[in-house]
């Protein structure tokens, strides 16, 4: 083999890139597909099982309350505002703003968890009552785990930033975290519609 020749010197390329240029983004995207599929499968199961019932929720099971789940859903959507600010700060590599919005987002995600725990109570059924209960709980709980994961991730970033361990590469990671945040919150809207609204309409 003769001597290679340089056709491209990569030393000028950036090390920190955002969005679809970053690897983590694609990883996040992959896991969003996986989790989205999981939710879709659970939602399809919910609809599939629906066809076994004359009434849904079945006779003897009270329909889920609407208040807490709606508040919870709106809160999920509203939490995108601080998350957006966080992404902005991360893109601007503004360490101070990042810390501020990370704390805000951690509090928001704690709020999700609390609201979701209340929401479980307003399902008015247990997972072992009947197939309806199982389907409802499975979907709500699966999404709950996503919320918990997102909260854990945000919390981890908050701790890293507040304890002064942050590095530059964390900024794009935060942006990816916000992408996941948007996914986690928005994906609940169809689920919320399916669990709480659609049975009332039909």
């Amino acid at each position, binding site marked *: 083999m003769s001597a290679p020749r340089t056709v491209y010197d990569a030393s000028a390329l950036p090390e920190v890139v955002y969005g679809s240029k970053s690897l983590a983004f694609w990883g996040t995207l992959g896991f969003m597909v996986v989790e989205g599929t999981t939710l879709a499968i659970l939602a399809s199961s919910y609809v599939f099982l629906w066809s076994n019932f*004359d009434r849904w929720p*079945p*006779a*003897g099971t009270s329909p889920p309350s609407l208040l807490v789940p709606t508040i919870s859903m709106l809160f999920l959507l509203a939490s995108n505002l601080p998350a957006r600010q966080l992404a902005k700060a991360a893109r601007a590599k503004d360490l101070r703003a990042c810390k501020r919005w990370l704390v805000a987002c951690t509090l928001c995600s704690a709020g999700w968890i609390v609201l979701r725990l209340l929401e479980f109570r307003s399902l008015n059924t247990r997972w072992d009552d009947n197939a309806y209960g199982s389907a409802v709980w499975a979907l709500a709980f699966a999404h709950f785990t996503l919320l918990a994961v997102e909260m854990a991730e945000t919390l981890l970033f908050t701790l890293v930033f507040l304890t002064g361990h942050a590095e530059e590469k964390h900024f794009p990671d935060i942006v990816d975290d916000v992408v996941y945040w948007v996914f986690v919150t928005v994906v609940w809207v169809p689920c919320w519609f399916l669990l709480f609204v659609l049975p009332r309409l039909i």
Partner: protein
Amino acid sequence: MDDPRRTAADLGTDHCRRPERETVAHPTNQPVNNQAAPSIDGGGPRPSRGAASKLLRAGVLAAALLAACGRPARERASGDTKPPSPSGLVASNGRAVATDGQWVRPTGDYAGTRFSGLDQINASNVRGLRLAWTFSTGVLRGQEAAPLYVDGTIYVVTPFPNLLYAIGLDGTLKWTYRPQPMTAAQGVACCDVVNRGVVYDAGRLFYNTLDAQTVAVDAATGREVWRARVGDINIGETVTMAPLVVRGKVIVGNSGGEMGVRGWLTALDEATGKVAWRAYATGPDADVLIGPGFHPFYPQDRGRDLGVKTWPGDAWKIGGGTAWGFLTYDPELNLLFAGVANPGPWNAEARPGDNKWTAGVFARNPDDGQAAWYYQYNPHDLWDYDGINENVVVDLTLGGRARKTLLHPDRNGYLYVMDRTSGEVISATPFVHLNSTLGVDLRTGRPTENQALHPSTGKVVRGICPAAPGAKDWQPSSWSPRTQLLYIPHQNLCMDYEGVEANYIAGTPYVGANVKMFAGPGGYRGLFTAWDPVKRRPAWQLTERFPVWSGALATAGDVVFYGTMDGFFKAVDARTGRLLWQFKTGSGIISQPTTFRGPDGRQYVAVLDGVGGWSGAIVAAGLDARDSSSALGMINAMKDLPQYTTKGGSLYVFALP
């Protein structure tokens, strides 16, 4: 149409208040008596028939008296109709028992009205009713019996071990009879080890023990006169019903519809206990005692050996159709009305077909058992809707026509008004929330099934109303000729039902269903309904927390008594349903209250407490409510009963101070 009734009732009261002063029957009663007397006294020669003609005359008088009490004045005056309820105070052999204020059989009279002509306790003074004394039976299972009163003695029969007590009117124990039934019988008694009462006739007491024996006991001494084994517990037969003694026969039916028995109704000779006839509910016509005299009203009941043909294979041999309810009798037509219980197993897929002759009613001649007609309330019963509920013999004017009718509140939730001469259904009206059927087609006599709730093996059908114990179970209703209302103690239960495979093993249950019951719409489980069969609507209705599992008792004082499972003995106004008086007993009440007048001239009311039965098994048998299929699913509806009452078994006797 409405006014005369009121007048009639008033007049009737007038007569009944002073019956002892009546020496001659009302002239307009003569034709009645002439008709009634031969039919009562008629029939073939009977060994027990040693009655003298003077006694016959007393019987005629008694019959006339009672007829006068209950009969509308205008009808009496016109003389073209029969008394609304044939006399209950005539012994089967024509001898009169003491006609005044006695209570000789659980149903009161033959018609099954449970109406007492006594009016000393009435709507205005009942609030002063006081406990006279109590007597502990020493047995803590469900007490469903009616205390009898005959000639100064109260007779009470307990659940298994079926002790029979004779108690003086001062509460002293006179004697005890212990039949010593086989203990194993408890294992084949489907719904608690109850007994529904003893019957008095001609100095003897007749009743059934749980292990399927009928005994005759001397009323004065408590000595056993005879004992007859009528069934076999090894194949699941028990007997819990109160027999009826009519025309020298003790009529007995078996229980065990949940055990795959073959139901029957048997007549024993009153004197000896020998079997006179036995009519099965399933099988060939010869076994069912269907002969040339059988003329059912509806065409589907006509044909040969339908008791075999409407079953797959030999299923009729284990097809249920027991007869454990109260029997009534019309002396005038000489017909016995005997309800037939559900077919077995519950899982109806095991028995395609109409499953004759179950879940219906037979009119039979008590002398030879031959069927006169039959009507099936629930062809191919899907929900354990027994047909054993009482058929109260009442004459009504319907659409301007006087009709000889039966009133039958069925488990399926319809109150049937039937022509008792033919078996024709005149009307069938829901008296409770129901969805298992969509109505009764009066042309065919068949209920219209709700296909959406049709069960099958491995499928769960939810929210079936009424539940397996029906809109009303065994608890007998009472008819007041004064108010022309039927007082129905009953329940408001629905159920989830899953058919499962049923295995027949002799002596073990044969059901094939998982059931879970719960309160019907409204959330209350008990109802007490005063039903107007003419207007076909309730005059009033009371709700109770638990099923009203006790019998009802209506009196000429326009007071209706009943008990609740949480232990209240209640007196309500017969016309309005207003609660007039209540007394908290030691345990829940599921028995049949009775009333009578003692030699001291005071009117007494007696009732047994002791919760149990199907609905009270959670307390009586200590069931575990974590398994909501317990007691055939009843437990799920009764989980909170132990918070309200405990076991008991005492006789309470009340009187005005």
